[in-house]
């Protein structure tokens, strides 16, 4: 309607090893929006992201990118995996890695043009990676590597950036930095963001919409709409309370309830 739909997930179900991992999941990501895919570990976030990338077979449902089927998505999806394991001896600089984001799909061996090289320099600057642009990718710290991966994904100018648990292995300060970075870079380059995490609090300041995933089912909407006791209780299948405290959200299960599905940071038992 008002904003264009970049990603449309409708009634998606995925089965794996006899288990239904995703069950009738539907949500939408619109242009320029920052969406958080929240759920505890093992609940199916990575499966969902892989399905969107066309790497996972669907049992039911449909996924459309920019209104067209997945097979025609071209290069409109950028992907940042959680981590890339690299030898420190690998002869590739951060600069080279980001440049590959531009032309890894090209055949041949041609030298890059000045415009292309300037683009890489600019991209590295945008993610605050100038300092280590000439360092080997294998020698970067977790946070540094993250920025390089983001630059690599963004340089081909996708309409949607997908990130798989980028915050999982970072210390709290780096988490804040990366979230701020992502928000800034996404709005500068007019890219929508779909980012999975098992803890929503770090994202509350920047999230436009949330997709809350548990038991294979999802609820989507704005944080006000979704992060409410009624909605989440229906999702979990048992009663949960949602407490808002000092700008942070706590999802709390009743004592005696199986609370293994609730993200760790947010679990208390109330005595």
């Amino acid at each position: 309607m008002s904003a264009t739909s970049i990603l449309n997930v409708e009634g998606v179900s995925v089965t794996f090893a006899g288990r239904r991992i995703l069950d009738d999941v539907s949500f939408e990501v619109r242009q320029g929006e920052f969406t958080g895919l929240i759920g505890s570990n093992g609940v199916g976030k990575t499966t969902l992201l892989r399905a969107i990338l066309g790497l996972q077979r669907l049992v039911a449902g449909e996924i459309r990118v920019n209104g067209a089927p997945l097979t025609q998505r071209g290069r409109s999806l950028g992907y940042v995996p959680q981590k890339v394991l690299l030898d420190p001896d690998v002869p590739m600089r951060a600069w080279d890695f980001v440049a590959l984001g531009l032309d890894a799909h090209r055949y041949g061996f041609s030298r890059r043009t000045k415009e292309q090289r300037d683009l890489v320099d600019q991209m590295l600057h945008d993610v605050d990676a100038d300092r280590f642009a000439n360092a080997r990718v294998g020698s970067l710290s977790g946070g540094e590597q993250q920025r390089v991966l983001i630059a690599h994904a963004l340089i081909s100018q996708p309409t949607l950036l997908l990130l798989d648990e980028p915050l999982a292995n970072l210390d709290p300060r780096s988490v804040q930095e990366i979230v701020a970075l992502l928000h800034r870079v996404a709005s500068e380059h007019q890219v929508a963001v779909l980012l999975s995490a098992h803890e929503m609090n770090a994202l509350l300041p920047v999230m436009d919409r949330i997709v809350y995933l548990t038991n294979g089912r999802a609820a989507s909407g704005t944080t006000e709409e979704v992060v409410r006791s009624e909605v989440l209780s229906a999702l979990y299948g048992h009663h949960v309370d949602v407490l808002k405290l000092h700008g942070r959200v706590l999802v709390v299960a009743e004592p005696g309830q199986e609370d293994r599905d609730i993200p760790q940071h947010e679990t208390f038992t109330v005595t």
Partner: protein
Amino acid sequence: MFSGFMVNAWLISTVVAIIAGVVGFFVVLRGSSFQAHAIPNGAFAGAAGANLIGVNPLIGLGVFSLGAALSIGRLSRRGRSDVVTALALVMMLALGAAFISQSTQYEPQIFSLLFGEILGVSTGQLLPVVILGLVCITAVAVLYRRLLLTSIAPEIAASQGLRPERIETAFLIVIACATTMTVPVVGALLIFTLMIGPPAAARCFSNRPEVALALSVVIALVTVWASLACSFSTNWPVGFFVGAFSATWFALGMAYAAWRRSRRSPRELGART
């Protein structure tokens, strides 16, 4: 050492070095040392078999290398353990030994196929070898960037629709081609060293892929030429010099890298978060 039949030897060894340097660069990048170790053993059996039935050894080398490459590729994709690959590798060697036992030139043949021979490639095979070399180089040049990304970050490559499995198969075929033409000169047991040593050293000297690739070729060339020259004057086997020089280059590379690391000031290291 530059007369008559040796011209061929210099020519072939130049091609061998270039191929080993280029293919080896990606072998090291992809961590495929085990495959580089195993596939030449298949080549050994193929050459021995071809000699036995009087067929051009290149054909035997090629067919068996390709078979070994593709089956090893399939086996490792299915996540099978190293055991079956190791046993298959040894089986190929035993098979080669069996083939050779049926010919009259038992001893010399084993030696030259396993440890290399300057004149391992005859004049008649010069053209096919050069063509095979060109095919290898062209394939790598065309797939260069895809090879880079799928080697380093296959997940990301898959998300971009680059199909890492297909690139893997293509690269295995390239290794098979490379093995076919390099084994007669350097030997089945030692070609692995030539494919690993120069690239492993090269990457210590440069942090840019294109430069490291070029260095890998240069180091391989120097190694092979020096080995050829030494082998010609001493009559000692080419493979011995290849092994020794590769190890030396590798040690030099590691020493240089260690020296570079110690030179970087602690403040510089600490400034980056």
